[in-house]
Each structure stands twice: as structure tokens, then as C-alpha cells.
């Protein structure tokens, strides 16, 4: 029977490098994907995932096993990515009236380079999704990404973000309403999202 994640973390805290290696191997793909979906940039996602794992290694001795390990890891990663997005928003601030296309959105296509195997139709759909998600307020966007693309349950999202299941449901509901509004209105009126 394979070691549980928490027991691997305990061994990591005791200086077992191999235990940490197994832990990283087990979660690296999921973590990189989550960071990439939230940040929209491959290199930034790899950096963020690495920083989260290093943080995990350093905090290993102080962590108390509670709930599922990956939920805890998702929580750290989501907060880390949100902080990065906030910093990026400050750095990339542009005055009103600038061309929106010139600003790198918070959730741009996960793979900016056109994939040879992706049809034009798919790429158009991805771009539309990206625009729609970009226009959502941060709290709705995060919940939507975790529910839709990470396929987490309401309970898991609530644990990850440290909010109630009711709050998850409300945010998702508002996100869906905003997406409907965005689809119904022309592109210029998309940013009028209800927070």
C-alpha cells in the first residue's frame, strides 16, 4: 500500500529526501496545471508550482495533517497564484481607454502558441472562454476555474479557499449569471459584472 501524502510529509520533516521526491512526483502535474490555469502563463506557472513545493518542504515540520493533502496544497497554490495575479495587475496597470488587447489578461489561453492539432474553431472557443472568464471578478473566477477545470466539488473548493460551501455556490451562481450577461451583450458591455 503506498504511503499517504501526510505520512510522506512527516518523513520529509524528518529529513527523508526520498519521501519529498515521491510527494513532488505525485502532485507535480496537477499543481502545474492548476497554476497554469490560474496564471495563464506556462513559465510563471512552473515558477509558482516550484515555489509552492519548496514552501511545503520548509513548512513540513509545522504542518498538522488535516483533511486531504491535495486540498491543502491547492489552497497554498491558489493563494500563491492569486498573490501573483494581484502583483501582476499592479505592474501592468494601464489607464482607462487603452486598448484591452494589449493588456495580458489574468486568464489568457493556457498555451499561447497555436497548437497545430487545434482547429480554428477550438481556438476561437478557447479565446471566447478566456475573455468571458477574464471579465469575472477574481473571487468568481477562482471558484469557476476550480469547479469547471479542476473538477473539484463544492466541499473541496470550500476547503481550498477557506470559505463555506454556501459561498462557493453563490460565487458560482453569480459567475454563471455574469457569463450569461456577457454572452447576451456586445463585447464592450462585458465588463459590467456583478461582484
Amino acid at each position, binding site marked *: 500500500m503506498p504511503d499517504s501524502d501526510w505520512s510522506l510529509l512527516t518523513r520529509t520533516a524528518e529529513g527523508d529526501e526520498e519521501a519529498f521526491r515521491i510527494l*513532488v512526483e505525485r502532485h507535480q502535474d496537477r499543481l502545474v*496545471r492548476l497554476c497554469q490555469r490560474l496564471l495563464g502563463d506556462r513559465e510563471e506557472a*512552473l515558477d509558482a508550482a*516550484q515555489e509552492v513545493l*519548496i514552501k511545503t518542504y520548509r513548512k513540513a515540520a509545522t504542518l498538522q495533517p488535516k483533511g486531504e493533502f491535495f486540498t491543502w496544497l491547492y489552497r497554498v497554490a491558489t493563494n500563491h497564484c492569486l498573490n501573483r495575479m494581484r502583483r501582476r495587475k499592479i505592474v501592468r496597470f494601464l489607464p482607462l481607454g487603452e486598448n484591452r488587447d494589449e493588456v495580458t489578461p489574468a486568464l489568457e489561453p493556457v498555451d499561447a502558441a497555436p497548437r497545430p492539432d487545434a482547429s480554428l474553431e477550438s481556438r476561437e472557443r*478557447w479565446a471566447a472562454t478566456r475573455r468571458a472568464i477574464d471579465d469575472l471578478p477574481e473571487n468568481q473566477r477562482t471558484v469557476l476555474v476550480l469547479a*469547471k477545470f479542476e473538477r473539484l466539488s463544492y466541499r473541496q473548493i470550500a476547503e481550498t479557499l477557506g470559505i463555506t460551501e454556501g459561498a462557493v455556490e453563490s460565487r458560482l451562481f453569480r459567475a454563471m449569471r455574469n*457569463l450569461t450577461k456577457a454572452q447576451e451583450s456586445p463585447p464592450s458591455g462585458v465588463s459590467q459584472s456583478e461582484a
Partner: protein
Amino acid sequence: MDYKTERELMRLLHGELSAAASKRLQQQLQQDSTLQEAYQRLQRQWQGLELPEPEAAPPGFVTRVVTRATGRADEGWVPVWWSRTLAGRVATAAVLAGGIALGAMLALPRETEAWTDYVTTEPTMAESYLAALEEPELELWEEDQP
């Protein structure tokens, strides 16, 4: 459609309704075409949200993370020559101090005056050349006169 029903439809779509509530709503959907239409619209919208699948972590990612984590390379900038042992630090400091002392000794002015005199008294190559060109020629011309 009321707010509560709308939220229930979303929960049904996300598989978050209890078995009993789910069964009840499914029955309602079969009887109410407006409700069914609303649910289908919600379904289309949810399924229409698409982003390309991100790539997995690249090869070597695990090794890079483990090396950085265990090597504590992320704790801040550390010079490559910085030793972790006390003896190593003392030796490094001694070598640095020796180097500074040697540099200071080499930079000290020694016999500067003699060197300056030599430079200022000795004519440059250009000066010697000009002197050779100008004066002797005049003297020779005068001597040749009857």
C-alpha cells in the same frame, strides 16, 4: 423562474444535489418544458467553457524542486564562495584579507620622483627628430659659404 430553482438547477448540473432532491428535480424537468429549456441552456453554457488542457510538468522538474528545496538555494542570495563551515569561512576571510593587503602594497608609491625626473628630462622621439631636422642644416649652409 425563481432564484431558488435556478440555483437548484446549477447544483444538479454540478452533481451537488442529494439523491432525493436530484430525483425530484429530474421529475420536474420532465414535466416542465420551460424548466427543461433553462437547464439545457445552463448545460450548454457550462460545457461551452473550454480551455486547452495545460501540459504536465516538464522532465527534470522533480529533481529541480528537490535540489532547490533541500539545498536551500532559495533562502536568499549566497555568494558561490561562501562556505557553510566555520573553518571554510575563516580560510575565505584570510584569503580575502591577504588579497586586499597585497593590492594595497602594490598600489603604494615607490621611487616616484626618480621615475618622474627621467620622464620629464628625456626628450620624446618627436622632439629629437625635430631638433635634428632644424638646427644642423642651417649651420652647414653657413659653413659652405665662401
